[in-house]
């Protein structure tokens, strides 16, 4: 069953388009990473899905509910951990629990205190006395205590130390997906989340450049390095070549949709002494795609 569906979503701030008719469907239990450069609209998409802002066009549904027309029910079942801390500075964790618990039908106080202990968040210290990272951990604990069916994470690792990052990325997210919680996260920490994301979406200039299973992406995007007999000026153009570099007799290009036959076809007009095919990391794939995209 699709837990997150959006179709043709568009949003502009004044004359600046941020999202241009983006569409996707995310199934239950999936972990989907939304990657993009600063200011491309990741947070905007998160807020639209959560019903905090309205799109200019298009529709969205979480757990079959429209967040614009059913915001209360959506938010009782979907949690959003945003990039910035919007907690009341005068409250502490205990006060926050007293404030929020009545609003969520599935609130689990014991689970909240368990997460507080696990993430080492003091329960009696005011929010404005917490460090940035601790605030983020508190926000995470609050979100998890409501036992959401869908978790929207906007830069979930900001300000966290390496130990906690690892804890969140591997242990926490794993346990959530084991329970069937769908996770849709936006982040710059591509490398950190590469190992847990089932699917990758790259947002650039308002559109989805990439929307694929992680395994498919890493399998299909490859770097080809070839040594030629004679130096060449340039690599022949091909729609599947994402980027290319020539240095004397060394030719290197990144191919989307790698197959040996395709490599052979591209190098057919050259006298190739030898060539190698290597994989790219997800960050490298991200850089390659976003560097190529100049906006349409």
């Amino acid at each position, binding site marked *: 069953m699709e837990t997150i569906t959006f179709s043709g979503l568009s949003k502009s701030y004044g004359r600046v388009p941020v999202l241009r008719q983006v569409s996707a469907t995310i199934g239950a239990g999936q972990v989907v990473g939304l990657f993009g450069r600063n200011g491309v609209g990741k947070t905007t998409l998160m*807020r639209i899905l*959560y019903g*905090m*802002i*309205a799109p200019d066009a298009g529709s969205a549904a979480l757990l079959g509910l429209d967040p614009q027309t059913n*915001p*209360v*029910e*959506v*938010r*009782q079942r979907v949690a*959003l951990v*945003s990039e*910035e*801390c*919007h*907690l*009341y*500075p*005068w409250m502490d964790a205990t*006060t926050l629990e*007293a*404030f*929020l618990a*009545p*609003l*969520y039908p599935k609130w689990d106080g014991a689970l909240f205190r368990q997460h507080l202990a696990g993430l080492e968040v003091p329960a009696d210290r005011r929010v404005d006395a917490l460090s940035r990272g601790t605030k983020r951990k508190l926000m995470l604990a609050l979100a998890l205590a409501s036992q959401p069916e869908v978790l929207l994470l906007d830069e979930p690792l900001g300000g966290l130390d390496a130990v906690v990052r690892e804890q969140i990325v591997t242990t926490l997210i794993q346990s959530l997906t084991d329970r069937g919680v769908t996770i849709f996260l936006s982040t710059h920490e591509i490398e950190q989340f590469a190992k847990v994301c089932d699917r990758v979406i790259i947002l650039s200039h308002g559109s989805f450049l990439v929307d694929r299973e992680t395994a498919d992406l890493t399998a299909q995007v490859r770097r080809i390095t070839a040594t030629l007999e004679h130096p060449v000026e340039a690599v022949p153009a091909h729609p599947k070549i994402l980027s290319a570099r020539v240095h004397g007799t060394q030719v290197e290009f990144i191919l989307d949709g790698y197959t040996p036959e395709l490599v052979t076809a591209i190098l057919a007009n050259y006298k190739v002494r030898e060539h190698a095919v290597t994989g790219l990391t997800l960050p490298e794939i991200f850089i390659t795609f976003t560097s190529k995209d100049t906006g349409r």
Partner: protein
Amino acid sequence: MKTLIMKELREHGLHVALFLLAGLGSILLLGLFKQLDHEIVLTLLFLFEAPLFTILLGHHLIQSEVKQGTFPSLAALPVNRWHLWIGKLMAALGICVLVYGVFYGLAIMAGAPACQIDLGLGERAFWIVPWLQTRGLPVFTPGLLLFWIPLVLLTASFWGSMQPAGVPAFEAIIGVVVIWLLWSQRILAAMHLPLALGILTIAFLISSWFTFRRAELLTDPWRVGRALLSLIVCLALGGGAWAILDQVADKRLLAGRMDGRIQVMDDGRGVLYTMRTPAEWFDPLQGLGILTGDINDPDQFDHFRCLSQEQGRTIPRQIGRRGLTDPLLSPDGQTMAAVALTRAPGIRTAPRLVLADRRTGAIHSTIDHQARPLAFLGTRDRLLYLRYTHQTGDGGIATELCVHETGKSPRSIYTAIDERPFNLQALYLPCLNRLLIQPPDRDSLWFLSPENGELASSPFRGWNWIRKVWQDERLALILPESEEAWWAVEPGREPRALTEVATTTRFLGRDAKGRLLCVLEVPAPEPHGLPEEVLGIFDPATHRCQPLPENAALRLNGLICGLSRSGRYLMTCPASQSTGEGRVIELETRKEAKVTLPREVVTNIYSVARDGFLVFTERQAWRHDPETAETVQIASFPEPMSFWTIESSLATF
């Protein structure tokens, strides 16, 4: 909802505590400096501290969220916007109730009288701050101070708190300027304040809801425009509701009591008068003194209406809008001078003296302000009126007699200055083209020229001294109260006492030959008999009254008499008896005709048209035309009319 309200209460708890301490501290300071007067306490607590707190609280409701950066968190809660908006408002109202309640207790402790707190819908004033009242501010009733003003301040600042920083301050400045303008024009003092504040409150609430609901994270720069536009729409709708209520109140003719004089119009086919009717619960305006336009009686919640009753209509007809009062018909009966109290729907302004159409009440022109008509001086183009003007400096009030002439500027012909206004009376004597007035600093009546304001002494000792007046263009006959003698006033001669004319003589008018007819007492024909009343004639040469020989057999004992303007007919009705009958006698032929009247005591017979009579009984007015022998009812009055009520109305005295 409960959790939202509790959160607001916790968030503002410190502010509440500080304000309560400030209130208590200010009271203690007053006590320390021996200034603990309950009027000062009321002013300090309810006109400064509590309103300031209310404004800050309202402004803080949303702005605190914006400044703390918690509005997105609030917007992200699984609570719909309606609950968020209501929760904040409910919490703020609860806090205000607490603060105002404590301040109320402090005021009582400081000596303010305890009062029943209602919503100001027609209640009587209880808390009055005199030094503000003298400056023309509305009377601050408990309902206003403790309910309506805090409500409108809270909702206004709540609305302002949803707008970008700096904009509410700008809007507040505009609001203060508007209030100052309304105050300077006395409009604030003359509105139905609870209703106006209620409309404002609703407008701010709807506008704030519209802004809050549509402004997603309060980052949209167009929310100011939306807020202002929605406020304008709401105020327009509120204004429409106000106008509708005003129309409803205007059309509801409630039973009331007659106030002021009765005017006869259309040759006796109608009468015009002022009716004082109680205001509806949605209609009362702050009391505004009719004479001076000052707030002098907050209990005045009556409306004045100009009504006419006419032949062929069974119910009275309102002339013009309510608030048109004190009508005075012009000699030709087509125009009336009146006092207009209402300028805009539901707003009573300082009284204006106007000329209006007698039939529709449509106002032609405004002659002056804070003035009322006294008399037309012979023609419709000359009007004598009374005007009140506040004097700068010592603050006294000038009472002026003024004359308005068509095509000319009004001129003042007499002025008296004192702390309080005078109710100057004036009697116009057309035979002399002079006015009789009693200057406040004199003990007797004086002649005053309406042309140049020249004063000349008269032999008459004062208004209480005059019992009756009969006059026409040639002669004025004045009867003093002390029953000394009638006095004659004529052009070219000094006023003289008519020692030969009995004080029981009643002057009727001139007959067809121009002779002045009267009813005079003659000795009884037999010894020890009662004097008889007969028709007589006043001889201007001898200054005596003689019985009319040709009507010697006409006995008028115990009869009220009226002479038609043509002098041809005499109408008589028994005085003090409700026989239901009258008589009309054609003087030349001595033909008599019976007139059927209602079985009520006849109080006055007034001549109308050429030959007609308007007969006033206790509660009715009937018109009789001797030519056609037709008798029709013209009016019925809500309360019994005495002889003196009609007499003083119909006479120019």
